């Protein structure tokens, strides 16, 4: 008939046309846990089920069903973890259904439960709710992301184009730790300690972009635009200004500290001093050449030149340690100054170019 034989129940979908199937087996593979153990589902919440007695015994150590407030701290926390990670409910966490209580009972009594099956069944249940009663809620965001990741979807997307975390809406879940206990009022506020070993939310975002632009919003706009233009020239691909991250991945810029001191604005006095230094150097050079050609010329040095020379040498002695360093420093400074001046001159022209480029980039973005 041309049909594949029915193997197992699957959730079938696609990302950008690439088929993605999720089954119990794929969940079990992603979380590296065999799909085995006890599984009980679809229990009636009425009082007739024989499970009631068993569960009440475990949870409340009583034959009757107790209230949430009667649970021990440990059980409350486990219920919280279950509501967040295993069978997410999206509310009403303190009123677990019988299914939820049985699942908790397995954990508490250390009987192995079939976690992948529970997760898969729960996923199907919520998917059907979305389709039939328009429930606007998706469970297992992280698990589905991991399945997509391990299924090679992210690699496929990477080959197609640049996708940034902003476009993918990348987030990391909140961590359950001591402060959660505090918020749940399970421990006193003053008992809460922040430990050095505390788990940090993963900052390792997707490695979608191999050559991620080494720029961020903290860079000056000129740097960003120049980089974008350069990147376009090199690779023919555009980077949208919105895609530039607010911060470098991994937090602060590694060079942020040294940059600050270098970028310190020059005072007027310094600027003048620099100029005079350069003039002095020129004078010195001319003096050297002239003295070789014509020894008498040195006698005709003007007082002005002498004063400049004096000034320069004085400043240099004050500022540097050895003569070698002086020369190096001066030449490099001179180069820097020259570059700076060139830049200033071209900046005006570039400004116009940048405007055009920006417009172009925006147009491109709109087209995409």
């Amino acid at each position, binding site marked *: *008939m*041309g*049909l594949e034989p*029915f193997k197992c*129940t*699957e*959730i*079938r*979908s*696609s*990302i950008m*046309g690439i*088929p993605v199937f999720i089954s119990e087996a794929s969940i079990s593979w*992603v*979380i*590296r*846990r*065999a799909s085995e153990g006890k599984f009980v589902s679809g229990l009636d919440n009425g009082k007739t089920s024989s499970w009631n007695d068993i569960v009440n015994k475990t949870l409340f150590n009583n034959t009757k069903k107790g209230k949430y407030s009667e649970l021990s*701290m440990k059980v409350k*926390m*486990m219920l919280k*973890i279950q509501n*967040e*990670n295993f069978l997410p409910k*999206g509310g009403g966490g303190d009123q677990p259904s019988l299914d939820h209580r049985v699942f908790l009972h397995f*954990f508490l009594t*250390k009987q192995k439960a079939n*976690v992948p099956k529970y997760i898969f069944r729960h996923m*199907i249940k919520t998917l*059907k709710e*979305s*389709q039939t009663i*328009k429930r606007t*809620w*998706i469970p*297992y*965001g*992280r*698990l*589905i*992301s991991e399945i*997509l990741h391990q299924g090679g*979807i992210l690699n496929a997307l990477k080959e197609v184009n640049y996708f940034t975390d902003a476009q*993918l809406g990348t*987030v*990391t*879940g*909140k*961590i*359950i*730790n001591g402060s959660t*206990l505090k918020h749940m009022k399970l421990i006193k506020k003053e*008992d809460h*300690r922040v430990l050095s*070993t*505390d*788990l940090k*939310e993963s900052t*390792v975002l*997707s490695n979608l972009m191999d050559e991620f632009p080494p720029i961020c919003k903290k860079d000056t706009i000129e740097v960003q635009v120049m980089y974008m233009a350069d990147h376009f020239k090199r690779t023919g691909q555009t980077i949208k200004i919105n895609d530039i991250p607010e911060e470098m991945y991994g937090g602060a810029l590694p060079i942020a500290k040294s940059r600050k001191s270098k970028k310190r604005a020059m005072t007027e006095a310094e600027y003048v001093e620099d100029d005079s230094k350069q003039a002095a150097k020129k004078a010195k050079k001319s003096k050297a050449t002239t003295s070789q050609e014509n020894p008498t010329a040195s006698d005709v040095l003007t007082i002005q030149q002498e004063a400049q020379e004096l000034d320069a040498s004085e400043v240099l002695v004050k500022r540097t340690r050895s003569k070698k360093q002086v020369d190096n420093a001066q030449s490099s400074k001179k180069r820097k100054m020259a570059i700076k001046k060139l830049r200033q001159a071209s900046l005006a022209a570039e400004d116009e170019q940048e405007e055009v480029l920006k417009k172009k980039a925006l147009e491109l973005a709109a087209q995409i």
Partner: protein
Amino acid sequence: MASSSSMQVTVPSNQEASAYKIKGRTMSLEEWELNVHVENPVDFISLAHHGCVLRDIYHTQDIDNYFGMLNGPTYLSLVRHFWVRAQVYDRKAAKMEMDEKVLIDPKL
């Protein structure tokens, strides 16, 4: 068979069918209407420090890897994209698929 019409479109019915078939949506919800629940990683050390020792319990369930996996990126856009196109393919859907084939070509 009203509901099966969407099945026909979305299920890759035979081997010759292109693997890159674009699936239609399976729900009337828009992607931006959906809220994604992101799981919470658990810091067992911090919990144990505050008198809530749980690691053993989860260790017996053999789901340490699961907790390790939780502390990672969630791609909200991709998850929403996945969800609105997802459909459950179970025995019932397979049966429907077969019935449809038979309906088209009764010789089968």
